[in-house]
């Protein structure tokens, strides 16, 4: 079984935000919720770097550990999904998440923040694959159709890679060897407890 991961090759990201737009459009993500975003470090200065970040689908996911109602589950592909029927909107997953992935439809309203929403790796939720209910709650289920997440598929510079962890790590390694440099796989140590030698 594949172990699905994201890898953002920060030396290729040009901050075009196509991944963000693709994600929003594919899943009809409401206003105010950002399953994926691009962050630029040292913006406008020498050594500037842009990284596209979403849920990394961590190994031993912190959100899953701290959830008081156990609404998270990890699929056989290593994708971390959750049930909006079980979520009580407490916000604890956001405090635990190293990548700021969980999003809530409301900010306050006496702590009732609504059902949490996050990147599903284009793999839907616990409902039947491709069902209307699944689409309404979690968006499209591309993985069930044999397709990879749209953000990575759309990436114009192929900076954002999605797929089996071993394969995308190999692609990244080859790139680093060929061009002679690489700033590393951002977030991999935090998410997967491993780094790619560069």
């Amino acid at each position, binding site marked *: 079984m594949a172990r699905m991961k994201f890898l953002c090759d*920060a*030396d290729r990201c040009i901050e075009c*935000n196509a991944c*963000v737009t693709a994600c929003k459009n594919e899943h009809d993500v409401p206003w*105010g919720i*950002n399953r994926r*975003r*691009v*962050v*630029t*470090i*040292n*913006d406008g200065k*020498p*050594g*500037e*770097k842009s*990284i596209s*970040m979403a849920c990394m689908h961590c190994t031993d996911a*912190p959100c899953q*550990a*701290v*959830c*008081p*109602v*156990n*609404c998270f589950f990890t699929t056989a592909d290593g994708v971390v999904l959750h049930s909006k*029927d*079980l*979520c*009580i*909107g*407490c*916000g*604890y997953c*956001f*405090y*635990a*998440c*190293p*990548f*700021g992935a969980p999003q809530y439809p409301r*900010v*306050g309203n*006496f*702590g*009732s*923040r609504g059902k949490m929403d996050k990147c599903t790796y284009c793999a839907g939720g616990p409902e039947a694959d491709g069902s209307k209910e699944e689409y309404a709650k979690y968006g499209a289920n591309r993985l069930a159709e044999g397709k990879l997440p749209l953000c990575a598929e759309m990436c114009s510079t192929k900076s954002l890679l999605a797929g089996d962890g071993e394969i995308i790590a190999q692609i990244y390694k080859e790139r680093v060897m060929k061009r*002679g*440099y*690489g*700033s*590393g796989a*951002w*977030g991999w*140590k*935090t998410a997967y407890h491993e780094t790619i030698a560069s």
Partner: protein
Amino acid sequence: MMIFSTKFHVIVGALTLLVMALGAQPVSAQQPTSVNPQASAVKEEQLFQELNRISGRCTIPDQKACTIEQPAGRDWRHFHQVTLRWIGGVVIIGILAVLIVFYLRRGMVKIESGRSGRTIVRFNGFERFVHWMTATCFVILALSGLNITFGKPLLLPLIGPESFTAWSQWAKYAHNYLSFPFTLGVILIFLMWIAGNIPNKVDIDWFKRGGGMVGHDHPPAFRFNAGQKAIYWIVVLGGGAVAVSGYVLMFPFYETDIHSMQIAEVVHAIVAVLFVAAMLGHIYIGTIGMEGAFEAMGSGTVDVNWAREHHSLWVEEEMARTGRTGPNKTQRQPTATPAE
């Protein structure tokens, strides 16, 4: 010979050109492959050494999204999943064990001189209303709060995920909304009982003699003895701390960043479990731990003999006061000295 010589020169010339061309290549190349154009770029490892989280600029209104990584979430997770469960478990089960052992050894502390049949007003209607409003809120807040930490391992396997989510959702609403009357109660308790709860010399003696529960005599006390003063300050300071940290959690990210939210949860949780433990002790003394104690908050009146044993100095004050204004439910005592 000439032909050979000419050929030789051509070959030598060609070789020389080739060597020159090869030798000149590094000079003519604009971008040698050995240079790393990203050499000055920021590195993840380096940023982690300098900061505990990595933030940048993002183009969406939600500024929280501009934090790309905060590994501190893992520390918070460890607190919430391991440390807090240990603290809460040890403190709450510990206090219950202590109370059970204490009850088995000491039993209910009786009124030594028996009931006199005469009563004295201890808490008026307003005081009792404030007490019970705060107490009712506290019990619900405590149960719904403990559910967040201990519900998943203890209750969820028993009732199943759907029922547990339904209960937790309601518990969360109750926790949020009942925080308001609870906070009001804590403020009123602070204001209406502050006069009797300033520590004084009598308290030192009271603590040295172990009070009326641990010790076996009755050290003198005013309206509130040192133990009750301790409970008062636990309620005021602990209640204040859970209220402030709780409202930070209830209005997330209004004035705080993610680190402050994590700190608020840690403070809220630790103070709350200690608060619960202290209140278990309070409930014990107020019910099965001591004869005649519950009626103080029940009917509002206590037996005069109970009052004499536990609050001797207060009874003298009261007798002096009511002796002047005339007894209502209390009979005039021979020992009572008129105020003037």
